[in-house]
């Protein structure tokens, strides 16, 4: 019970059971597996966002990076093969994420404000570039979401693989350790000899690269890219990360939490979707779930740590 991730895990199971009971359309495992293709893209964004938030930052521009990459990739890749197209998308995303990181670290500006501005800039570039047009995706990179590997659609496989890889980077590599330290106390991190700026920029760039992959998946799925796609997806990604127990103040969080939270959101949205619950109710429920999940983990953590003394922390209650 020491790991607060059991809250989203239990919520996932509960939601799954609820919809399994309520809706026959939900009682369809192949459908549940195949329907993951859309949220897998958001999931890829949430993986990168986990790194950024753990390092004590935030990136509000992820949706705009997604859209600009999705719009630029077909233009630049033309009819190139899929691997080349992916590479281009990854590079584009990494550069945009990296630019965010560079401005934040070098100008010493809060990430919230910088990415608020780049959110408008990246989407603005997409709009200025395409205007009323759309970018057509070459036929050879279309339809990734219809191919499957081990019975799972490719986007889901990609999402799970990267969740694992980045999860390992976060919890088993030096970079991940640095990010936790930077998010906890960036000054102490500097004194401890962490390359604070470089690690922060790397986190943003890695997140950008993952968004590039998400953009590729999106292009492949839609066959076309438009500058007005996916508004508000950044909030969805942040919601997944935070509901998974990553502390918005930085220094605390796990990839398992993000993954479980993604699963929770997937069951909730899919279940509500096949039951045709009205969009406005869906909004309300997702807002509630975020609050419940975070509150639950807070309570769980405080219960778990209640047995430990906290002499340096002030408590307002005895």
């Amino acid at each position, binding site marked *: 019970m020491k790991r607060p991730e059991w809250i989203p895990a239990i919520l996932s199971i509960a939601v799954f059971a609820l919809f399994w009971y309520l809706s026959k359309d939900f009682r369809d495992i192949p459908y549940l597996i195949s329907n993951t293709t859309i949220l897998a893209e958001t999931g890829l964004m949430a993986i990168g966002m986990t790194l950024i938030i753990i390092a004590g930052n935030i990136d509000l521009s992820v949706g705009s990076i997604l859209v600009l990459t999705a719009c630029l990739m077909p233009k630049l890749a033309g009819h190139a093969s899929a691997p080349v197209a992916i590479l281009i998308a990854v590079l584009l995303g990494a550069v945009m994420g990296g630019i965010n990181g560079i401005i934040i670290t070098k100008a010493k500006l809060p990430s*919230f*404000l910088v990415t608020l*501005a780049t959110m408008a800039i990246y989407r*603005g570039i997409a709009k200025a570039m395409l205007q009323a047009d759309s970018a057509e995706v070459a036929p050879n990179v279309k339809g990734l979401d219809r191919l499957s590997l081990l019975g799972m659609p490719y986007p889901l496989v990609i999402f799970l693989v990267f969740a694992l890889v980045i999860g390992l980077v976060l919890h088993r590599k030096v970079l991940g350790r640095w990010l936790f330290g930077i998010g906890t106390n960036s000054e102490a991190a500097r004194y401890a000899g962490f390359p604070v700026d470089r690690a922060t920029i790397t986190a943003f760039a890695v997140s950008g690269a993952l968004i590039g992959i998400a953009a590729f998946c999106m292009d492949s799925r839609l066959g076309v890219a438009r500058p007005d796609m996916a508004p508000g997806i950044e909030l969805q990604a942040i919601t997944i990360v935070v509901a998974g127990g990553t502390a918005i103040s930085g220094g605390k969080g796990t990839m398992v939490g993000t993954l479980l939270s993604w699963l929770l959101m997937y069951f909730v949205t899919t279940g509500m979707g096949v039951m045709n619950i009205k969009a406005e109710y869906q909004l309300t429920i997702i*807002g509630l779930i975020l609050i419940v999940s*975070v*509150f639950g983990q807070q309570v769980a953590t405080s219960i778990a740590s209640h047995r430990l003394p906290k002499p340096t922390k002030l408590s307002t209650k005895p």
Partner: protein
Amino acid sequence: MKWRELGLLAVVIVLCVACTMKDRNFIDPHNIDSILLWMPLLLTAAIGQFPVIVIRGIDISIGSIIGLSAIAVGVLLKSHPDLGVPMLFAIGATIGLILGILNGALITYAKIPAVVTTIGTLTLFRGLTYMVCGGDQIDASLVPDRLTVLAHSGITVREVTVSWLLIFALLLGIITALLARFSQFFGNVFAYGSNPSAAYLRGISPNKVQMACYALSGLTGGIAGVMFLSRFGNASPASAGSGFELLVIASVAIGGVKITGGSGSTLGVVLGCALLAVINVALVVLKVPADYQTLVYGLTILIALLIDALSRGVKKQGAAA
């Protein structure tokens, strides 16, 4: 006036002069009206957001509070078309206050971080907005003239009208500025924002401060919701106040309220709102093509931020020498 506000004022003035040089229309009374009309909603909500940011918090749900207040007041007008203007504002403010208290309670007593709480209530309140009106929009015929007139009449000086809405918002600003200077409560807010644990040890109740700040943000959001009806004459549950949260937070942050808490001024907030108003109206009147407006808007904000960072750097070096 401090460094920070002077710098911001300079940026606003330079921008205005540059725009005027580009196009004389910029100082046309119509255009000044347009800039002045752009401000009141944003300013009202920003005034509430100001103490929240000072205590190291954030209220992202403000856009949905504006929306819910606008729609709820509109729905009420369906059944009670004769409600007086002060009553409408009082109702809007009360609705906002209740939502703000809900935010405050979740943050203070359930101890859920402010960002998380208010991202959650952003969608939650938006959902409630749809439920309140059953998804219907508030048609213009429901919004009485006595309310909309506030947006286009006021004090007119040389063809430029300072609308009642703006006067009201500025009054709120002045009251806030006075309170910030002369009230014990705001003293506590600044102290709490500067050093929360020290504030607690000095006998300031963190719960009271937090509850009050979020309640205040909700209150001004509720007022801004009624202003929304007044300014636009109609409201839809989807678009009323939607996206305002980013504008409000941007104007407070650009206005020099430290996002890490503890300092900031009402004047800065007013100037931050003015800067955003000037940029947004300039985009229109200078005929920036629609497809380029988002880009130019983003670049302007980024440049404003970088100038600020640069001036901070210069100041720091000056202090060290």
